[in-house]
């Protein structure tokens, strides 16, 4: 009989199709099928593994965090970056403090429980989730202040971060000295080398120039460190530089990170959506 004879082959095809379906739907949406259940199991083992790893490597990291806290204390009045990391925000009707400034960003600390740096697509898992106020699309910075990536998936007690070392990742950053914006991506080769495109050749760019986060992101505060230019290449085919950037954050060895929340994210996003709807509607009536 046909089905009996080829039953193993048919099972093989079914399992292949399931796998490929998982793979390609995930690539499009970054929402893994079955992650809800599997996440609980992997988080449990990741937590255990991390406790063991901490025992060996915590000391160096502690020193670094301490240095950063120290410098933040000094900066407190100057740029209003709060150090109440780990705090969860309570609903407060007054969004101004006594100095008349409005708070835009809240920083929270988190610990990295699992991370890879050896694939084309690298992710981190941290030990804070929606229970601690983490939500999708929040920015992530390392303990020495460099950009790390973005939250892409939030569980109750854990969340997943897409690292800069991910070929899918593209983000808008700017050259600090000239202020021109470019697109930062990763080519999947060395973890010490990101690629920055779209900086026009009319700018003067030198090795060692600072790259900071751009002004036009809802997820990141502007002007935070991203990296420094390590190579300047001229693309003969176009009017743009191809810059190689060395990230400030040590992306292969992260243990403590900061999660930045833009308090007005929802408001800004909604305004953007409404504007687009409005324009679409007008366009249709014409």
């Amino acid at each position: 009989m046909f089905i009996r004879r080829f039953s193993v082959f048919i099972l093989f095809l079914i399992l292949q199709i399931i796998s490929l379906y998982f793979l390609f739907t995930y690539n499009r949406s970054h929402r893994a099928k079955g992650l809800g259940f599997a996440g609980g199991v992997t988080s449990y083992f990741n937590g255990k593994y991390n406790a063991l790893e901490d025992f060996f490597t915590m000391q160096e990291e502690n020193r670094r965090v301490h240095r950063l806290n120290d410098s933040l204390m000094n900066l407190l009045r100057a740029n209003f970056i709060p150090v109440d990391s780990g705090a969860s925000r309570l609903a407060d009707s007054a969004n101004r403090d006594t100095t008349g400034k409005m708070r835009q960003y809240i920083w929270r600390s988190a610990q990295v429980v699992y991370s890879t740096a050896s694939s084309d697509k690298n992710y981190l898992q941290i030990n804070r989730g929606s229970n601690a106020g983490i939500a999708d699309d929040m920015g992530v910075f390392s303990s020495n202040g460099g950009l790390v990536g973005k939250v892409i998936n939030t569980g109750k007690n854990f969340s997943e971060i897409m690292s800069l070392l991910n070929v899918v990742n593209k983000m808008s950053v700017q050259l600090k000295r000239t202020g021109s914006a470019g697109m930062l991506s990763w080519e999947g080769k060395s973890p010490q080398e990101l690629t920055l495109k779209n900086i026009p050749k009319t700018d003067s760019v030198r090795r060692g120039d600072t790259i900071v986060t751009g002004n036009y992101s809802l997820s990141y505060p502007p002007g935070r460190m991203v990296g420094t230019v390590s190579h300047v290449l001229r693309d003969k085919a176009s009017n743009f530089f191809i810059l190689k950037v060395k990230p400030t954050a040590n992306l292969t060895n992260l243990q403590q990170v900061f999660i930045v929340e833009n308090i007005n994210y929802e408001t800004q996003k909604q305004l953007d959506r409404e504007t687009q709807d409005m324009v679409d509607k007008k366009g249709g009536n014409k």
Partner: protein
Amino acid sequence: MSDLVRNIIRFMLFIFLQVYVLNVMPHLHQLVTPYIYFLFILWLPFYFKKAWILILGFFLGLSVDYYTMTPGLHAAASVLVAFLRPMVINLFAPKDSTEFSYKEPSPKAMGWTAYLLYALILSFCHNFYLLFLEWVSFGSFIHFLMKTIITTAISMVMIIIAEIIFPRKLKFRSNTV
């Protein structure tokens, strides 16, 4: 130890080795990750039904996938290995007898040459398919070919080391069970 218990322990050990040692250690060269978890499938006993090997392969790959956040990638590759395994074993089966005298594929059961060829073919298929799927979503062709060859070489080195460190003391299979 019964086969069931032995294989459950192996399943977990291979996943932990892959996820917590090989995936997180500093990359060897241009992001080549060493793969060995599929050795679990290569070591399954001969008498397992083909369909069961496929299902075990699927869950093995999927378990690794949920750690690396690439659902389906390793699952697809290890299902392929599980599917090809019986065919490759048939290639090296002794002509005169239909049954192997040992329970699992091992250098002792098949001879070193046959066993190494068996491991080489399957680990090449695994790495080729895995890196091919990675390449489909991203990457350059030359990069992909080089990666396949290097990754396979590393997998083979690790399999040989595993065989030398853990020589499996398998009982001779008698006809009277």
